[in-house]
């Protein structure tokens, strides 16, 4: 199959973004053994050839072929945001080619055409998938939480997790085969990273490399059980549903933001009485299911009203996370308490990162987001954990890390270089607390 990746008209798209888009093209077509060609508008050839001398960039052809797959690299302009390369895309569509565009995160989506059946993954994988709209992204009803489907970033399983392994097979693994199960929200899902760029993939590589260098008879598999919107209670439900038999040797709970944000706007009666933080938008599901749209819910309309105090939210979050840790330990695992990074903790950033933050920030989140940095500060000052529970403060680490590099793509989602740091942080924690302390020997029974 011939694949033509088309560079944008605007020469101002930063090279870091173009690199990620190129990586996206390579990744999406890797298995198809595609014949990949890079083309650019005539007027921009010189510019892009200078930036990417290794790519052998040709001029955009006058005609595209009907059996071709044309992929438009999205441009990014500091002032105007993103736009796909419309002219080439339209010409290619008219010629009958399959046309897609690649976003700054590497996500590939159809360009002016419906998603094909190949692209719509898992639509019939379970009744809850079948009952859901056949859409490429969205939250769908699932009786034990919800599933979130987000296509275009690589393989996902029927519950929306970026897992290609069979969990059932992993449950029958050898005693020297260790499983690390990582939980979190969409930042943990690594929303702006391609599959091989996820911190979980890199973590797996680090741990296996460490063992190989030291001739340790250990093998690690790292699973990403992150899901958009997850708070700690969702993580526990996910663990109960999918990980009980699996008995992960290590659980990483990489979270904080969702609990901090949702906690401030959810029903105080759920928080104060029951320490339940949930996605406030789930109240919308209740209204849909029970046709109670006229019944008031916690938030009436935008803007959000903050109804719960930050420290009260922290207490519930910490309590639930301790509960999660207890569940994990009772099932034989080591629990790592991760605190995810947020942009507001990062005081210095590159102009590119600042620009992306400006474009991608959701202004409706601002009232809650304004409090998160302070909440995380209280958490790190006040949290008392036992020695068996490593605390990995990714927020503190990220706050001063490489201000010249593109680390964050928005308030909370990391770009690939950010996931590189995350992987390093968790690898160091696991090496120190699990491997070097010999805990892997205790668990191998």
């Amino acid at each position: 199959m011939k694949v033509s990746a088309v560079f944008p008209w605007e020469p101002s798209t930063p090279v870091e973004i173009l690199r990620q888009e190129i990586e996206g093209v390579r990744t999406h077509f890797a298995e198809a053994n595609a014949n990949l060609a890079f083309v650019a508008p005539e007027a921009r050839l010189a510019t892009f050839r200078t930036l990417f001398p290794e790519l052998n960039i040709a001029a955009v052809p006058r005609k595209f072929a009907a059996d071709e797959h044309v992929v438009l690299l999205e441009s990014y302009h500091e002032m105007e945001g993103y736009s796909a390369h419309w002219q080439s895309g339209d010409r290619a569509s008219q010629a009958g080619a399959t046309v897609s565009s690649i976003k700054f995160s590497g996500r590939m989506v159809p360009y002016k055409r419906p998603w094909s059946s190949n692209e719509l993954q898992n639509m019939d994988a379970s009744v809850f998938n079948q009952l859901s709209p056949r859409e490429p992204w969205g939250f769908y009803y699932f009786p034990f939480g919800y599933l979130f489907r987000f296509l275009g970033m690589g393989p996902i399983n029927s519950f929306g997790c970026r897992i290609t392994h069979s969990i059932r097979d992993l449950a029958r693994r050898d005693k020297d085969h260790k499983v690390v199960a990582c939980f979190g929200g969409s930042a943990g899902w690594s929303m702006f990273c391609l599959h091989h760029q996820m911190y979980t993939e890199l973590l797996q590589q680090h741990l296996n490399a460490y063992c190989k260098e030291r001739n340790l008879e250990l093998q690690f598999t790292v699973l990403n059980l992150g899901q958009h919107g997850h708070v700690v209670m969702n993580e526990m439900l996910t663990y109960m549903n999918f990980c009980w038999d699996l008995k992960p040797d290590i659980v990483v709970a990489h979270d904080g933001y969702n609990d901090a944000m949702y906690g401030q706007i959810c029903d105080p009666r759920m928080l104060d009485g029951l320490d339940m933080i949930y996605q406030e938008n789930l109240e919308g599901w209740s209204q849909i299911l029970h046709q109670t749209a006229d019944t008031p819910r916690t938030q009436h309309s935008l803007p959000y009203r903050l109804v719960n105090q930050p420290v009260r939210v922290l207490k519930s979050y910490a309590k639930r996370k301790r509960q999660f840790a207890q569940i994990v330990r009772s099932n034989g695992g080591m629990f790592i308490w991760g605190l995810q990074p947020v942009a507001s903790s990062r005081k210095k950033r590159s102009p590119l990162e600042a620009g992306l933050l400006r474009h991608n920030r959701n202004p409706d989140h601002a009232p809650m987001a304004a409090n998160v940095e302070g909440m995380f500060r209280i958490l790190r000052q006040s949290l008392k954990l036992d020695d068996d529970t490593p605390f990995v403060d990714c927020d503190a680490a990220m706050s001063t890390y490489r201000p010249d590099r593109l680390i964050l793509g928005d308030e909370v989602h990391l770009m690939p270089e950010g996931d590189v740091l995350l992987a390093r942080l968790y690898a160091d924690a696991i090496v120190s607390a699990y491997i070097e302390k010999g805990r892997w020997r205790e668990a191998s029974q």
Partner: protein
Amino acid sequence: MADDARLRRDLQGEVDRLVAECKASGLDNAARYLADNRTAVVEIAIKARSEPKTRDLPSPFVYSMQ
């Protein structure tokens, strides 16, 4: 459609009242602008009044913090 026609009529009336009030108060600049550009002003007003006053919460189908 009936709502659109009613909105247009209401706003035409409102603009005419404003013109009268401005003239009575000696506010010639405003009176002249509203009267002489009545058609355009009414179109601008229709667009303005058609915008929703409150913003709905996002659908639970498409939304999360992260």
